[in-house]
């Protein structure tokens, strides 16, 4: 990437030089402001699918790295689900050793270019950061996610991505079900030990939610593809268009096909609806459907892609998570005139990443807080015409500690919309459990595992959203890694 002409970069270089002219005390470090990440102009980017955030320049990254106090107790590491040595890699950035920094991260996280972009850092590594705490604001913490992303991008664009070392072949076979974050991570760690690894994926491209769900403008697909290529160079085999449970029963993989262990990482994948009247009208979509059409099936390439996308003018997105943000911003890019996010609580309670909410607001997405629909109204052709929306106020805190939204009686309003995208989460996909009778699941359909990710069936492990319910990419990766350790042990 070349942002060298950008004035902000020159500024960072000058600032860095000035800073380094004298010894840097912790007090001085704390005075360096958090470095903003350059982004595409909001009015330009709402017309294109290219990545919104552009990433730090080397000088910006080094300046940001100087903000890190290198705390002995490193509270940030405890905040990371895969325990990346954060002060370690930031120290390398400070020295200008970007490839060394990449090596530190990759000891525990093989997908930093993805995590740097999609992890909710403000509630993980950046939450306990000493700098943020001292400056009384998590947004002023060291920008660990942006630094991680910088390092990963630097490594890739400089052609320095190393294929992890693979031990001599053991001849033992392991099957991974699902090529999402959990499955890919598990595959790498099992393959490192020299076992034969085959990943079975139902879709025609690997990546799971990273290719069907998260849009191009937030996570370029070429990144996911290059990660999958690293796995291929390690000798991991991909069987695409293969639905374990239907194409082949899970138990046959062990009993007949010679797999010594199986990891199930099939994701959440059964969309929840509101269960309000009118939800089957034409123009009501699950976020999964809307985003899969737009991302995986490239419906935004009108005329070229075979998959159509609904022509929308006024869109209501229901929900307050990252998927809701992705859907809203995608609808805008696909030509909607007005996109509103309806959320039952307020901005403080929204589970979406802070950066995504900010980007959405900049792009012109309108947020209707303390609102939730009660029914969908259709026209004579059965197409969405309006939403009946109820207003809420915040009451007493509930079990989760968040203030409970209480409906305001008689506050129903009828608002015109032609499209409704439901982004209120997923239930677990019943396919594997339906076709694998001995596999124990809880009442939500999540696979029950022990502390080593082992299921009720010997040699079958599971992790990610199929165990956790809808969670995050990084938590899924953490589970894939834990399962890999357990699998590697039983195969010793």
């Amino acid at each position, binding site marked *: 990437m070349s942002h060298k002409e950008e004035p902000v970069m020159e500024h960072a270089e000058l600032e860095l030089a000035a800073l380094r002219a004298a010894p840097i005390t912790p007090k001085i470090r704390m005075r360096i402001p958090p470095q903003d990440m350059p982004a595409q102009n909001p009015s330009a980017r709402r017309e294109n699918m290219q990545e919104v955030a552009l990433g730090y320049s080397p000088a910006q990254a080094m300046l940001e790295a100087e903000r890190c106090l290198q705390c002995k107790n490193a509270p940030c590491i405890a905040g990371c689900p895969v325990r990346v040595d954060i002060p370690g890699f930031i120290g390398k950035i400070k020295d200008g050793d970007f490839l060394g920094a990449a090596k530190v991260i990759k000891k525990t996280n093989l997908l930093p270019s993805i995590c740097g972009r999609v992890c909710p850092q403000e509630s993980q590594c950046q939450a306990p950061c000493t700098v943020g705490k001292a400056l009384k604001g998590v947004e002023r913490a060291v920008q660990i996610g942006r630094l991680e992303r910088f390092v990963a991008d630097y490594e890739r664009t400089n052609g320095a991505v190393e294929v992890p070392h693979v031990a001599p072949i053991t001849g033992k076979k392991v099957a991974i079900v699902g090529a999402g974050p959990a499955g890919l991570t598990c595959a790498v760690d099992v393959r490192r030990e020299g076992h034969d690894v085959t990943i079975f994926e139902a879709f025609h*491209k690997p990546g799971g939610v990273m290719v069907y769900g998260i849009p191009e403008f937030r996570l370029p697909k070429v990144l996911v593809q290059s990660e999958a290529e690293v796995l291929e160079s390690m000798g991991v085999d991909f069987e695409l*268009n293969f639905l374990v449970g239907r*194409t082949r029963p899970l138990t046959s993989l062990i009993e007949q096909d010679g797999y010594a262990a199986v990891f199930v990482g099939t994701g959440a994948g059964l969309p929840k609806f509101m269960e309000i009247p009118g939800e*089957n009208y*034409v123009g009501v979509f699950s976020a999964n459907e809307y985003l899969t059409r737009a991302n995986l099936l490239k419906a935004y*390439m009108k005329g070229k892609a075979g998959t159509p996308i609904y022509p929308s003018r006024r869109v209501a997105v229901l929900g307050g998570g990252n998927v809701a943000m992705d859907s809203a911003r995608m609808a805008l890019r696909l030509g909607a005139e007005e996109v509103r996010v309806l959320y039952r609580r307020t901005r403080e309670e929204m589970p979406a990443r802070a950066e995504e909410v900010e980007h959405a607001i900049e792009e012109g997405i309108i947020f209707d807080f303390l609102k939730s629909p009660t029914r969908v109204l259709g026209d004579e052709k059965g197409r969405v015409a309006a939403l009946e929306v109820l207003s809420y106020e915040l009451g007493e805190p509930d079990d989760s500690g968040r203030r409970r939204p209480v409906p305001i009686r008689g506050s129903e309003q009828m608002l015109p919309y032609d499209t409704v995208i439901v982004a209120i989460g997923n239930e677990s996909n019943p396919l594997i459990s339906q076709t694998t009778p001995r596999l124990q699941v809880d009442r939500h359909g999540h696979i029950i595992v022990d502390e080593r990710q082992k299921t009720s069936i010997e040699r079958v492990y599971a992790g990610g959203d199929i165990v956790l319910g809808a969670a995050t990419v990084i938590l899924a990766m953490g589970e894939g890694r834990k399962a890999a350790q357990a699998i590697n042990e039983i195969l010793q």
Partner: protein
Amino acid sequence: MHGTHTILSKTRLSEEVYRIEVLAPLVAQQRKAGQFVIVMYDEDYSERIPLTIADADPAKGSVTLIFQTVGASTHKLALKEPGDAIVLLGPLGNPTHIERFGWAVCVGGGIGLAPLYPIVKALKEAGNRVTVISGARTKDLLIMQDELAAIADEHIVVTDDGSFGRKALVTEPLKELCSMTPKPDIAVTIGPPIMMKFCAATTKPFGVKTLASLNTIMIDGTGMCGGCRVSIGGKTKFVCVDGPEFDAHLVDWDGMLMRLGTYKEMEKEAHDRCHLEMQIEKLETQGDSAPPAAQESSK
């Protein structure tokens, strides 16, 4: 990366109907009557097209698919030749519940005759007396006739225009069969949604249990998108994981027909554009250059 499947043979059954045989040994081995697959004509820009499996040969490792070129995507699929690779995922959905019911009436309309065939075969093998009603708009669109005639105990053929068999809609002989004593023990219907809707309305007064195989809009076919949802007895069900067969008397047919029309205008536009492109291609292969105006509009 593996995962594409080779087309072994292609036969044009009529103006708009094609039969392809695809090498997919695991699918051929695993599939049961009533299940479907999703195919894509390429891995980059294709729509995901759900097609019911017409037949399979586990020994040869092949599945047979029969489809009608109703839009741009099926046209592009029809352009594939033996030796070409396509994406194929399956078998999807729940198999038809097969048991010895007694007397079964199987009603197939148009392209629906293809997926009806394995069900007729399975019902027959389970020891049922099977009456088949084959219907189509016109003689050319009647498919699988030899195969069905060979196994059915009775075979009634109707066409809308009277070009073959009785000039009638399928509901006419269906009603006659339902009026008999004893009446049929079960009816199965596969075909255009409107035909299935009227079959359900025909058998309902007689209390003949009726199964319909639904083919709704679908993306992944694994339960992930919910695009295929349909109201069954007031409850929302997913055709891909809860179906594709449902009690025809409980299906909200009007709701389903409405949802099937979601992309109608866009599909028509794509279909027209596809025909234009095919015409241009034809002209180009004939050595003529396409007229500039047509090239412009193909973009």
